[in-house]
Structures are given as C-alpha cells and as structure tokens.
C-alpha cells in the first residue's frame, strides 16, 4: 500500500495505491509535479497564472499552455451537456475550476495507471476516481462533520460531491448569478468509464440546478447516479443509486458501530 497526501490547488490531494509497482514512486513524483503545474497554469488566485492573464487579455489562447484551450473546450462541452448549468465564467470572470480539479484527479490517475498500478484511488479534496476495487467510499454528512451520510462501494467509480458545508454557498446559479441554495450537498457517482473530470463538473452544474432538476437530469443521463441532501436534511436519490451500495448492509454497520 502506498499513500500520499499533497497540498495543492487550495486543497489536498490524497492518493492511495494498493498495488504499487517499482515504477509507482516515480509516477507519484510526476503526479506531484503535474498537479502543481496545473495549479500554476489554471489558478484564479494567482495573478500570474495563464488563466488570470488570459482573462485580463494579456495572453491569447494560443499563447497559453497547451492545456488551456483543451480545458476551455471541455468546459464548453460540459455546458452543452448540462443545458448551460455549468459555465467557465461563474460570476463573469474566467474560472474553469469546475472542470480543472476533477481533470487533475484524472490526470493523476492516468499516471498511476501508466506505472502499472491497477488498484488505486485519487481524491482531489473529496472528488475522487477509483480504479479496481472494491473501494468503500464514505459520503460526508454535510451537517455533521466527521460523520457520513452514506457509504457506497464499487469498482472503477468516480464520485464527486458539491456542497455548502465547507465553503458556504459558493456555487453560483448561472441563471441568476446568485449562490445556489436548494441543496446542502449533491453527490454524483459516475459509472466506470465516466471519469471524475466529467462527474465533478456535472456535480457542480447539478448542484446549481437544485434538487428536482438535478435528480431528474441525473436520472436521464446514463452512467450517472445522484444522492442529494437537502437543506433540511432530507435525502433523495436516483433510482439506480442503490446499485452502488455495499453488499454489507446497515445491520453490519450498526454492529460495527456498537
């Protein structure tokens, strides 16, 4: 088992590899390098990042790091997939963060795979990609720090949670420009092949949609399930979500707790 926690992008990336190969430590070094590079290029908190300079008109897309046009194209694709509930300009400023973090997780996962590992998990501040498995994934309870609202389990899943617990109402509703407040948290589970970049960006969009629209949207979309925790603590979920529950049921958990 190999573990690493890397503070970057204003959060912490947690990496676990169950089957490290002799090449995995080197891959880990490349991941750390890559994550900090992505931060340097895309951070909206750094005035000298490519994204900040592009936004100020000091750079053209062609002058930027080659990842920039790729990321902006991905943002536009997600906007189309979510009926424009996702935008790379939340609040008016160029800010592709809604795509970048999940994509960075996916990049890290790809480097682990290149090292020959097959059973690993990469989390970027709570948005995660698993490979192999099974992995047991706790969904943080938005109202009770340290406790979980649910436990999911599976192979090759991507799981992203958008919510107000940690940073307050920070996801803007692109239709109103105001913070979305219809949900306490929204978790999307991407089936194998969906990938955390998309799952994470979709979670941001779905959070802005509010519970009714988000659940209906996720229900329509193949390969995605959703768990919503409403501001009053009510939980709602898509019909397929139970498929991601662990084989061991609540009785097992209770005996473990007791």
């Amino acid at each position, binding site marked *: 088992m190999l573990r690493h926690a890397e503070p970057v992008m204003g959060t912490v990336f947690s990496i676990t590899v169950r089957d490290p190969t002799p090449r995995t430590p080197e891959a880990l070094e490349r991941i750390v390098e890559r994550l900090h590079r992505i931060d340097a290029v895309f951070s909206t908190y750094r005035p000298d990042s490519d994204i900040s300079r592009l936004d100020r008109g000091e750079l053209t897309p062609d002058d930027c790091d080659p990842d920039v046009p790729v990321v902006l194209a991905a943002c536009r694709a997600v906007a189309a997939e979510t009926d424009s509930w996702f935008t790379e300009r939340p609040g008016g400023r160029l800010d592709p963060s809604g795509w970048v973090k999940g994509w960075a997780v996916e990049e890290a996962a790809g480097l682990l795979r290149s090292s020959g590992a097959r059973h690993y998990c990469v989390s970027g501040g709570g948005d995660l990609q698993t490979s192999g498995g099974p992995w047991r994934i706790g969904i943080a309870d938005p109202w009770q720090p340290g*406790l979980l609202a649910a436990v999911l389990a599976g192979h090759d899943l991507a799981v992203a949670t958008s919510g107000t617990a940690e940073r307050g109402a920070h996801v803007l509703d692109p239709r109103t420009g105001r913070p979305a407040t219809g949900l306490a948290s929204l978790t999307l589970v991407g089936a194998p092949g969906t990938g955390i970049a998309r799952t994470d960006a979709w979670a941001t969009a779905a959070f802005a949609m509010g519970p009714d629209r988000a659940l209906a949207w996720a229900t329509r979309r193949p390969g995605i399930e959703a768990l919503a925790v409403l501001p009053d603590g009510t939980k709602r979920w898509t019909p397929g979500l139970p498929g991601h529950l662990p084989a061991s049921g609540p009785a097992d958990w209770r005996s473990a707790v007791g």
Partner: protein
Amino acid sequence: MRRAVVTSAATAAGVVLLLSLKPHEAAGPAPVIGSGSGSATGSDVSAPSNAPSSGSQSAAGPSAAAAPSASAAGATRKVSGDTVNTRYGPVQVQVTLAGSRITAVDVVKYPTSERRDREINTAALPVLNQEAISAQSAGIDVVSGATYTSDGYIRSLQSALDRAKG
C-alpha cells in the same frame, strides 16, 4: 391481542413506507424493505427510528401511520391502512401478514406529484435513512465531500484516513 399485533405491524410498515415509498412498478435493485422475508415488524428497519440524524423523510411521522381497517383471522391476510396525508401527498399502505409476520408491504396510493419526482423519491433505500455512520466503523477507504479547503482537510475524515494508514 391479535388486534394489537396487527396494529403495531401496520404502524411499523406505515413508518417504513413513509421513509421509502415503494411503487409497484419500481425497477432496479431488490427493494430492501419491500416484500419482507418474514422480518416480523421489520427488525432491520425499525432501528432507524431512533436515529438522531435520520432524514426528514420521516417527517410525516409514526403518529400519522395507518390504523388497520381489517383484522381477519387466517394464515395470510392483507391489511390496508388509512390514507395518510404526508408532506408529499396522500399515502396508503397495505400489509400482507402470515400470522403476525409481515410478508409484504405495498403502497396502494401514492402522492400524485409528477411521475419523475415520484420515481426518484420511491427507490427503496433505507440504508440512506440510517443513522449517520462513523467512518472508521464503516471501514471506508476514502471520503467524498464538499471541497475541502486546506484548513478543512486537517479536520477531515480524509485526513484521518491518510494518517491512519500512513
């Protein structure tokens, strides 16, 4: 006495069904609390009622649960509850009993809200209505939660997991 048993059974079923309304046409995984395999008054689902953190699906409350309208003798019988007005709309449940054991529960009347909404609400998933789960006890590998800030991470479950398995 028998009447009392039936009442408590129907009440338990009513509570359970208010927690997770299961439509006849629900597709997908086996209903976790739907057609029971003889779990008496639902021992596998009665525990959540004392959960400090269960979601407000239970807001309609046990007191609103159905009273039995029949208590015929015999091996197998069906008992229909009264229609209960929940925050989602009117709900009526029917319990099938073998002796005093519940063998099946059915929702015979649902809230008449939009169908999609109903389907979403009705997946039977009492696990998610369980008491909040301790991470360590649940044996989890990783936590998905709203984005940690670097400060938040220090206090987070993920941080504990990273340290624990160093």
